[in-house]
Each structure stands twice: as C-alpha cells, then as structure tokens.
C-alpha cells in the first residue's frame, strides 16, 4: 500500500470524525442534517476506497448503500419530517456548546489513546480506522445524550452508525459487510419510519422527547397512587 493510499484513507476517516465534531456545535437542524449527509458521503468514499485497497468488491455495495441511502435518502426524509412536522429549527441542547465541544475533544483523545495503544500489532491504517471509528461512535453517543430534539438525537445515532461501518470496512476482510450494512439500513429505516409513525398517529404534539416522557411506564399509575408529584423530566440527572 502506497503512502498516497494511506493518506487518502486517513484523510477520509479523519474527515468523518471532523464531521462528527462539527455536528456537535450545530444550532440549526437543517445544518445538522446537511453535515450528516456530508459525513455519510465521506463514509461512502472511505468505504469505496477501502474496497479498492482491499480488492473487496462487496464493499462497493456497502459504499453504494451508504451513498444512496444515507447521504441522499435519509437526509431528504429528515428534511421532509422537519418541514412537515413543524419542528423547531433551533436545536435544544442540554449543555452549552463549549462544554460539549470540550467533552468531544476529550472523547476523541480517549478513543485515540485506547485504540492506538491497543491495536499496536495491527496495520497502521486499520489501527487508525478503528481509532477514528471509535471516536465517531463516542461523539455520536455524546450527541444523542446532549440533544433533546428527537431528530437531532437520531442524527446522533446515525453518525454513530457511520463510525461502525467505517470500523467494519477498515478492518481487512471483514465478512458480512453487506449483510451488516443492510441490517443497519433496516434499523435506520425503522427509526425514521418510527418518527413518521408517531406523528401520523398524532400521539405526540411534538417530537421533542419531553412529550414522550409523559408516557413513560407507570408514570401515571405512580402519580395516581402516591399522589405526590413525580420527578421532573428535566436534566437534574445526567
């Protein structure tokens, strides 16, 4: 593998992580969705590049799925949802951008530290891919836990999943790549459809998850029996 090959792979994986970081400080939903599309596009490129490097034709399918499904279809659907459901365009965050970015940095550091140390025996490229993937995964999780808005939470999950595909694609000769990416696509589709479903059935006025909280199990039962106000659904616990 030449230096150029490596550099390109490195750049693409790094780009994925950068996109994740960018998502962290987005304040507007549309921008967030766009960056997600960008990340998915980068992922498609990275997987395709891996396919070329590893001479693994099935990875092209994965790349194609990523491109069509994640970079195009899902962002489009999300746009529609946001528009259709009149969701606040502004993203409600739990903690401020500064702390979030700082924690994001810390997570990246953690991922690098853990992964690079661990995968010392494997090829450099694979190691870095795994490290970036872990970082993306952690950042995705971070996003999920710092956003109140359902759409942005889902985007967090989607970016997390991008990290997984990156890791899987970066690991040489990983079998079932196609199956896995299809499985994930189904999962994601479910999630997005789920969003629609909830809206369609008009169970919830907003996709802000606080509305969902009202239907947490036993909530009303507990209130009925104890008569005392239950816990705030706010953020005192985190």
């Amino acid at each position, binding site marked *: 593998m030449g230096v150029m090959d490596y550099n390109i792979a490195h750049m693409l994986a790094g780009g994925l992580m950068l996109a994740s970081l960018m998502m962290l400080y987005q304040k507007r939903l549309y921008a967030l969705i766009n960056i997600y599309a960008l990340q998915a596009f980068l992922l498609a490129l990275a997987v395709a590049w891996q396919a070329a490097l590893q001479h693994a034709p099935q990875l092209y399918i994965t790349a194609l799925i990523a491109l069509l499904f994640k970079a195009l279809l899902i962002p489009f659907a999300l746009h529609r949802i946001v528009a259709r459901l009149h969701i606040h365009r502004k993203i409600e965050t739990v903690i401020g951008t500064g702390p979030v970015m700082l924690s994001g940095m810390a997570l990246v550091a953690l991922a690098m530290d853990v*992964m690079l140390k661990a995968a*010392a025996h494997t090829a450099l490229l694979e190691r870095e891919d795994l490290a970036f993937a*872990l970082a993306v*995964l952690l950042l995705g999780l971070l996003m*999920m836990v710092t956003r109140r808005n359902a759409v942005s939470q889902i985007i967090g999950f989607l970016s997390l999943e991008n990290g997984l595909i990156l890791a899987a694609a970066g690991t040489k000769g*990983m079998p079932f790549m196609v199956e*896995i990416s299809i499985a994930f696509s*189904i999962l994601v589709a*479910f999630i997005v459809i789920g969003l629609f479903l909830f809206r369609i059935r008009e169970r919830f006025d907003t996709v802000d998850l606080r509305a969902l909280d009202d239907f947490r199990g036993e909530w009303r*039962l507990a209130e009925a029996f104890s008569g005392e106000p239950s816990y705030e659904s706010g953020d005192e616990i985190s």
Partner: protein
Amino acid sequence: MNFDAVSLVLIIPLVAAALLAVLPEYKLSSRVNVLASALTLGAALSLIAHRPPTTRYFLVDDLNIVFIVLNTFVGFTTSVFSASYIAHEVETGKLTSGLLRFYHALYQIMLFGMNLALVTNNIGLMWVAVELATLSTVVLVGVYRTPEAIEAAWKYFILGSVGIALALFGTTLVYAAARPVVGAGLNGMVWTELLPHAAALDPALMNIAFIFLLLGYGTKAGLFPLHAWLPDAHAEGPTPVSAVLSGLLLNVALYAILRFKILFAANPHVIPPGPLMAVVGLVTAVFASFMLYPRYDIKRMFAYSSIEHMGIITFAFGIGGALANFAGLLQMVMHSLTKSAIFFSVGHVSQAKGTQKMEDIRGLTESHPLLGWGLVLGVVAIVGMPPLGVFMSEFLTLSSAFARAPWLAAPLVLALLVAFGAIMRHTHKMAFGPVQGSVKPSRASYIPMFIHLAIVFAAGVFIPAAVAVWFKHVAKILG
C-alpha cells in the same frame, strides 16, 4: 446445504412467517403458529439425537443445544398460550385481525432470529440474528399502539439500537484481533476457529472488545444499568411477548455473552471477564430486587424479577467453576420456564380482572383458583423455594460463591431476600384476602403453565443423570 435439522429449525419459522403474513383469519393463523412452533420444537429435539457436523455457519454443541431446545420449547408453549390469549384480546377489541397477521408473522420471525443466533457458528451472523430478534420484538411490544406501548417500544428500540451498535463494534474488534492470527475472511468470525487460537489474539484489542460486547449484549440481557427498556417492554406488550422476552430473548443475549466469555477466558493476557460479570450481575440483582417494591403493575414487577434473575445468572457464570456454571445454566433454564409460566398466568389474570394494576387484583386463589394457585406456585418457584428448580440452582450458586468469596455472596443473599420480600408482598395481596375485581371465570389454557411448572418441579427434586452429565460437561466448557 442439505435439508438437515438445523436448517429445519431455521426454515420452519421463516416459512411460517411468510404464510402467517398472508393468512387473514386469526383463529387459523394462531393454529398455524402453534403448529409451526411445534414443528420447530420437533426439529430441535431431533438435534439432540443427530448432531449435525459443524460448519463455518452452523454449530450445534453441548452448550447451545440446551438453549435451542429450551428456546423452541418455550416458543411452542407460548404459542399455545398465545392462541387463547389472543382470542380474548380479539373479543375485547384490543387487537384487530390485521394487526394479528402482523403479530403472528413477527412472532415466527422473532423465533427465527433467536434460533439463528443460537445455532450460528459465526459471531457476525449472531449479531445480525440478535438484531433481527430485537427488531421484531420491538414491533411486537408496540402492537397495542397505546401511548404507553409506543413509548415502551420506542425506548426499547433506541436503547436496543445503541446496544446493537456497541455489540457490532465489539464484534468488529474481535475480528480485528483475530485477523492476524486466523487470517482474513470468514474464518475470523467463526467461533470454532477463534477458540483454538484464543490465547494468541491481541489482548489489548480483546479488552476493548469485551467492554463493547458486554455493554452491547448486556443491554439485551437487561443488565444494570442498561436494563431500562426491559420493564416497560414487558409491561406494555402483549403477555405472550413478555413471556418470550423474559424466557427467551434474555437467554439469547446471555448466550452471546457466554460465548464471548469462553473466548476471553481462554486468553490469559486478557482481563478475566469473570469478575466483571460477577460484579455487574451482583449490582443488577441488588438493584432489581429493590426495584421490585414500589411496583404497581404486575407485569412490570415480574420484569424486574427477570432482571434480578439475569443478574444472578450472570453472577453465577462470572464466579465460574463447575458448580457455579452448572448452577447458572440450571438457573437460566428454570428461570425461562418459570417466568414464562408466570407470565402465562399473569396474562390470563389480567385479562380476567381487566387490569394489570396489582391494587385491583385481590383474592385470586378464591376467585380463580387454578390461575391463582398457578401464580402462587410460579412465584414460589421464582423466589427460589423448594421443591422447585430455582431452589437447586440458587442453592448451588450461593453455596459455591459463599465458600469461595463470602463477601460476594453476602450482597447476593441480600438481593435474594429483598426480592423475596417484595415479590411475596405483592403476590400475597393478589392471591389471598377478600376478593376484589371481576370473578367471572376465565377461559384460560392452563396446560402450558402447568407443564412448565411440572418440569420446574421435577427438576427441583430430580435431574436425570444424563441431563446432569450433559450440563456438567457444559459447565466445564464454560470454564
């Protein structure tokens, strides 16, 4: 691939699912459902006699055959229970026939997913299968489409998806560690290929992998603090689904953890997985036992009891050694049977009384003697009283743990006692005292419940030598 028993175990549910998806009439489809489950069970039983050769895709060994037989058996009995349960739901208008088509098809898909996860020899395929089973149960949980059900399904879905993602990353890492040793390609994911080389796998990668796998599959198994989806999913879904969730899906997740545990334990340089599992199991058990007290919903209470049992089982496997592994295995089987029997009873009870609120269920042994005593018997079994099977496994778990590490067994005793007190407290009120709520007799199918309880009872006093030897062998495999 020739048409052997393994493929039957997988194909029957798939075909049945396809068939059920198009059958319009619920009475017929519930019968087809029972039939398909029975056939699957038969196929699984034939696996005991004729064990197919291990391929790179499928593996039937002493360990997973326990799970497979248990799985198909409970799947079958639950389908029987489901038939009478569903009939009542249709009568009361809670479910429509359109939804039922969906329900039955997904039931078989779920069984397919679980069977696949169990028979596969491939950690990647296993992951896919677990995901499939999860997705199908998500939909099943939400099938009532009440706000609570949708909330539970959504919660299950999101937390489950994150768990799945973590498990996949762990699987990828295992493969990454295996590739330099086993070589790239399918072999790097074949369990029987990985195991002989376990000691040579990169320990650092394996450490990280274990964390991800434990968290990932642990979410499925309902280990604290990843259990949050479990109580609500049990409480809000149809009761047959609760029975299957508690009785089967948790086992499948546990099976995955166990497979990986064997792998990790075979590598002396990796952090031993046992202690971590023991601690997680212990914390889970203690936590769940306390959570049993402030419960109002009968199904949610038993869901927490499932969490507690998963904690105990994980603890037992974490402790390791022949006795504790045997105990863990036994406990798992007994828990599956008992808990599903309890859910059978609970399902009919809540239908008869028209509520899941324990406050409104009183004097069951008088108003519905068979259901009430069945529930009492199930509860007596689940809290670990003899002469029922859970007692034997708890006896072995506790005594082997206490002899070796008293400080670990003490919290477990606490958990067991607290759980005992809690479950008994609720059950006492439901089963005895002046009758409250409806007294109209329920048209229940008692057979599945009492078959389960009979097996549990028999196992409590007598385990056939062959089964014991077999379990013991498995215990040895588990290390």
